[in-house]
């Protein structure tokens, strides 16, 4: 924890090395979060970079109030995703890329087939926004229920309940997708 405090303090002094460390430490989690919510790789890369730029612009406003720095980053990422959807409401949940890939996929059986990230992304799109966020955050960087609750502004009990419903729905959709392609 102290290490994170020192890193943030250096980042607030605009040390390039500090921002480099932040980038290396949190990039994978933020990218995975954005990708599973957006579904497009290039766009996800751009938005991920945007998250760190926004973090740099607002780093002076950050202070540790019992919330880890990663929670603050994920909140920025969530806001950017919401802004993206607001800017492009006409787009369907599936990108053109995903639709094209879906037509080419030919898994053998429902459960034996290797689910690609496209299939998972399609399944995730069937969930509600809260359910998506809970599932993605829980499995992205191994965030705890408390951390997810802090990011989403919910209680731990609510996060657990959302997780159950989300995984149950996700499992059902994945099973249906597998049966449909079988």
């Amino acid at each position, binding site marked *: 924890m102290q290490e994170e405090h020192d890193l943030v303090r250096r980042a607030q002094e605009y040390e390039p090395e500090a921002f480099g460390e932040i980038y290396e430490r949190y990039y994978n989690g933020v990218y995975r979060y954005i990708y599973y919510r957006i579904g497009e790789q290039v766009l996800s890369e751009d938005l991920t970079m945007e998250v760190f730029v926004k973090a*740099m612009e607002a780093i002076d406003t950050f202070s540790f109030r019992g919330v880890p720095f990663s929670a603050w980053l994920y909140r920025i990422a969530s806001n950017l995703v919401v802004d993206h959807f607001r800017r492009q409401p006409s787009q369907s949940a599936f990108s053109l890329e995903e639709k094209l890939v879906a037509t080419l996929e030919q898994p053998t059986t429902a459960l034996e087939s290797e689910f690609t990230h496209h299939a998972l992304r399609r399944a995730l799109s069937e969930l509600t926004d809260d359910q998506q966020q809970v599932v993605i955050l829980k499995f992205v960087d191994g965030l705890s229920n408390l951390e997810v609750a802090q990011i989403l502004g919910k209680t731990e009990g609510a996060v657990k309940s959302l*997780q159950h419903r989300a995984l*149950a729905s996700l499992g059902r959709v994945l099973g249906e997708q597998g049966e449909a392609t079988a």
Partner: protein
Amino acid sequence: MKRPLEQKLDACLARLAGGTDVEDVLAEYPEDADELRAALAASARMRELAPPPLQRRERKGKLLAIVAAHRRLVEATEGVVVEIKAGVPVGEIERHCPSALRSVVTAARYMCEVEPPWPSDERRRQDLERLRRLAARRRQARIEALPLRLRIAVGLDVCLSQLVCAARRVVAERNADQGYGSRRAEYDQAAGSAFGATATRAGGGSTGAGSYGLRLGVAAVPIAAAMTIALLATARMVVPAAASSVPGEPLYQIKRLGESAQLFMTFDPQQREDLRAQLAARRLGEMGLLRAEGLPVPERLLESWLLTSGGAGAAGGEPYADLTSEQRRLLADVLRGMEANEPGLGRRIAGAGDLLVRLEQDETAGAAVASPEGDGAADGQEPASADLRWSPRQQPRPLPGDDLGAVAGRSGGGEEQVENPSVGGAGEHTASAGDSGDVLGAVQVAPPDAAAGGGDGDPAGDPGGQAASAGGSEPSEPGASPAPGSGSGSEPPGAIAPPSAPGMGGGDPPPFVQPDPGPPQGSPEDPPPPGSGEAP
């Protein structure tokens, strides 16, 4: 008293509750059927909204059961997620989890196993470089946004704070063996953070110590150097003025800081030992001053003397072995005073209890052979002040590294070039002979007036090295090491002839060197002044 219609309504409701049909009930009251029908319909609606207690309990029980089952599923899901993340085989999880959670297991498994398409390394490298450039640009913009004087002030503040913190850390490390380490380290951190806070306030943002100074780069170097020189010059003026201060005075800390810096700047082991001995003598002199002025001696001063007296005290040796009888008497008085004020001195300060016992034993042994001319204690006068040849606010005794020539040439003149130790200084004269002349005169006069120390020739003199040696004394050859008081012959036999101090070798002058006792009074052999070429 209910009206007849109300009584009929009650009867109808009772029959409806028993399961009778509404029309059958109304058929018994044809004349009131219309009114009763509306009332019975309303009653039926109310029953739907508020079921009878039995039905309420049943439905509540069902609801609670559903909630509990959901809660169990939620907790079971959390357990499945934990097991999946921990790497438990999926087959094993599915064997013991409820069938309702099979889909949860599947979903959790794929959430863990499926990886998104990752960006290329080139893309990540480009993003990282861009981020660093942006950070550097923002940092530069922030610096340039500050007014010039503020930038200079912040840079100097940070540079000086780094300098001070670094110096204090080194001093703290050097003094770690003296028990100062932990306290000094904490002080360094506090000083560093204090300066960092200053930089933060000046910078208008959350900055740390050293950040702006470093970033100002070359522009701050000459300015910082000039400020450092000014600081050192100021120190060289302040430290001499602080040289005669005692604990409790504002400049005492500066004096100690100067001593610490001088000790730090002395690299030769022998010179370090000599310097330690001089510093121990100073501590003893300060005790004498405080006692003479009727002030309490702080325990830290005694502790400091114990730790610096040649290192032998700290190692469990005999730190008082080289003391004169008067010095020992002073120490005994100090220790007794401390013990009287707050019992348990031996527990608080390591070695103090044993030292007091030993000193008292020496006193007891030496009382029987006390000089007939008496010493200070015998005459009832304050031994510490007079016998120590003390005059407050005197110039300090020069220490190794100062200009030794004038000190060594003490023989002829009545004046002496008194050197004041300064921070890192060596051989610089900060006090002229003329300034010290009156002081020396006072020193010279004091011994004859004070019957206490004059007769026995016991050069209890200047254990702290503060008093300047008076002129007119017979010069002593460098390297001669008469025992303190041995020349007068009045040294009580019980006094321990001081052996050579540790590390000083045979024939070296004793570490606690007394000032010249003035006109020879049975003291044909005066100890050499300190620093007068006594290096072995």
